[in-house]
């Protein structure tokens, strides 16, 4: 194993993991606070990516797409929460699963109607359209470094917000022990709205960020949905810190597996998940486990 190659692979793994964190943190918060699994979370990622495609397609720079994805995501999340999810918190699991499954189908269909089914590439912003050599003979695109930076920034802001603000600590309390909300006399409806909007915004931001790296294509969210589930199971439900470390771990295992053990790479993260379930069924980073 050559060392410079390993350095590049580690960089890949961290970058992949941080992107996973943006997606799975929303998933784990929504699940922790409301007890709902949103199967359409991957489709929101897909919507974010297509939003970046549309924005850049109109000639606007990509960095405009990022706030647009955040705002659009927050709005969409709020609408979904108010219009649909709110009625389903107390319903049977089966109903919730099928509701969000239906959303996947409808989001995909809307995407197909409005934007077609083609694979589209999204240009890297001109400012970042150059490569930085990281090892002898291998360069890393500046945009990938920018994605790394944005992910770290967002993760930092999230931790600050959760630790330092009143609303943040209420959300944290709600995610760890949903019954705390009532005990503390918090406004559950408001917390639900905020959490759902935030989770949706993060998923769409991740999509917009990833669009130049992955291109946009139908059903692109499906793979990310499942890998996010693995992150949440490994990290522990309801814990943002768990999602962070879980995402980094999965990103690294997945990337290094593909590079060095390609025959079994597809299975590596599932084997990891099985191991975690046997060893610590509540997740590696769950509190009180």
């Amino acid at each position, binding site marked *: 194993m*050559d060392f*410079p*190659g390993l350095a*590049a*692979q580690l960089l*890949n793994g961290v970058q*992949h993991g941080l992107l996973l964190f943006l997606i799975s943190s929303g998933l784990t918060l929504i699940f922790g606070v409301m007890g709902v699994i949103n199967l359409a979370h991957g489709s929101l990622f897909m919507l974010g990516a297509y939003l970046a495609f549309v924005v850049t397609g109109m000639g606007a720079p990509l960095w405009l797409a990022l706030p647009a994805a955040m705002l659009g995501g927050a709005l969409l999340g709020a609408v979904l929460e108010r219009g649909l999810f709110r009625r389903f918190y107390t319903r049977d699991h089966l109903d919730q699963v099928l509701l969000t499954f239906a959303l996947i189908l409808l989001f995909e269909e809307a995407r*197909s109607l409005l934007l*077609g*089914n*083609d*694979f*589209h*590439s999204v240009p*890297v912003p001109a400012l970042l359209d150059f*490569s930085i*050599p990281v*090892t*002898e*003979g*291998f*360069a*890393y*695109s500046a945009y990938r470094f920018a994605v790394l930076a944005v992910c770290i920034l967002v993760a930092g802001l999230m931790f600050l917000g959760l630790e330092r603000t009143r609303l943040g600590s209420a959300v944290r309390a709600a995610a760890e022990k949903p019954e705390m909300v009532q005990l503390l006399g918090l406004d559950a409806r408001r917390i639900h709205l905020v959490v759902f909007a935030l989770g949706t915004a993060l998923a769409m931001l991740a999509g917009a960020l990833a669009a130049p790296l*992955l*291109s946009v*294509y*139908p059903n692109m969210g499906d*793979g990310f949905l499942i890998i996010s589930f693995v992150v949440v199971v490994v990290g522990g439900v309801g814990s943002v810190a768990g999602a962070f470390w879980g995402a980094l771990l999965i990103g690294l295992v997945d*990337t*290094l597996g*593909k*590079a060095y053990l*390609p025959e079994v*790479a*597809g299975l590596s993260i599932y084997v990891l998940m099985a191991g975690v379930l046997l060893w610590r069924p509540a997740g590696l980073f769950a509190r009180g486990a």
Partner: protein
Amino acid sequence: MTRNSFTPGVPRRALALPLAGIAAGALASPAIAQGAPLRLGLMLPFSGTFASLGENIAQAVELHLNERGGRMGGRPVQVIRLDDESNPANAVANVNRLLGRDRVEAVIGTVHSGVVMALVQASRERGVPLIIPNAGNAAATRELCAPTIFRTSFTNWQPAYGMGLALGRQGVKRAAWITWDYAAGNEAGEGFRDGLRASGGEVVRELKLPFPETNFQPLLAQIPGLNVEAVGSFFAGGGAVQFVREYAAAGLRDRVPLCGSGFLTEGTLAAQGAAAEGIRTALHYGDGLDTPKNRAFRSGFRERTNRDADVYAVQGYDAAQLLGIGLDATRGDPTAEQPLARAMRAARIDSPRGAFTLSPSHNPVQTIYLREARGGLNQVIGVAAEALADPGTGCRMA
């Protein structure tokens, strides 16, 4: 051969149930009365990722039909389209629809190599003539070949073989191969290796990632350490766009030239932009083929659709030509299996790509061109392999 039997190869007492009178004869042989329209099924993707391919194939089929006055073997042809969405999960159901509900007598289809398997099976079991206008999975004209199955496109092996051959002739001794880990990618990899070996080179490493992932970084990061003179690849569509761009962004383009099966740059050059400039690929068609047949075909297609023809349209056009030859020989009877197959097998197709014949396993024996991406076109710059046939390994016609 075991088709048409519910119990293949079990040498016990057979008990034939007298069901014939009970089951309604849904598939009774069609009336071939002269003049009754021939129901031709076009099972193609008209929605989904490959919709534009399906549409071009269908348009080209109809273009040729028009040239023939809408008749084959003396019978008017009624075209029945069925959208398979390139969704293998629904493939069997869609084939049943086309053959059972719509009762088509011959099929041209399809693009997706998974969906085509259901058509291949139906053709083997029910004897319906099938012409494959795109899907390049080798099996259809190797171990699963059948007298009623023909192909007017390629096997994945063919273009990649041409590319490998051309690369070795340029003096490349060591090359890597990078692809999605699925049948098409692996069959192309086999062709690339065979071609390169035939001209004195060697594939030293195969890099693969699961289909259809686009996280190429873990693979690209390994290339500098391999000490190769060229990288061959098989990607198509959006994956090809992303791959070519990342290859350039990783700083590899100027150090290790990228080449591949023609689909790497087919229909994707606009999206790939400067990153694709200079990439060499091999395919059975290309831009700048200046033959009368090609000129006529392209202008006819443009007139009909307002679009430029592409390799898919050529394949569709030739599928219609081939079926026409077969039906002319049987005076419009698609159930005359033997004469139909004989006539099609012996045909010489005057294709826009250059004339071709069919191999014993019913796959084109064709010229593979070497092309270079220049200014948004896949300019033909030479011939990679002349009259190349797929090995047809494992094909035993019943």
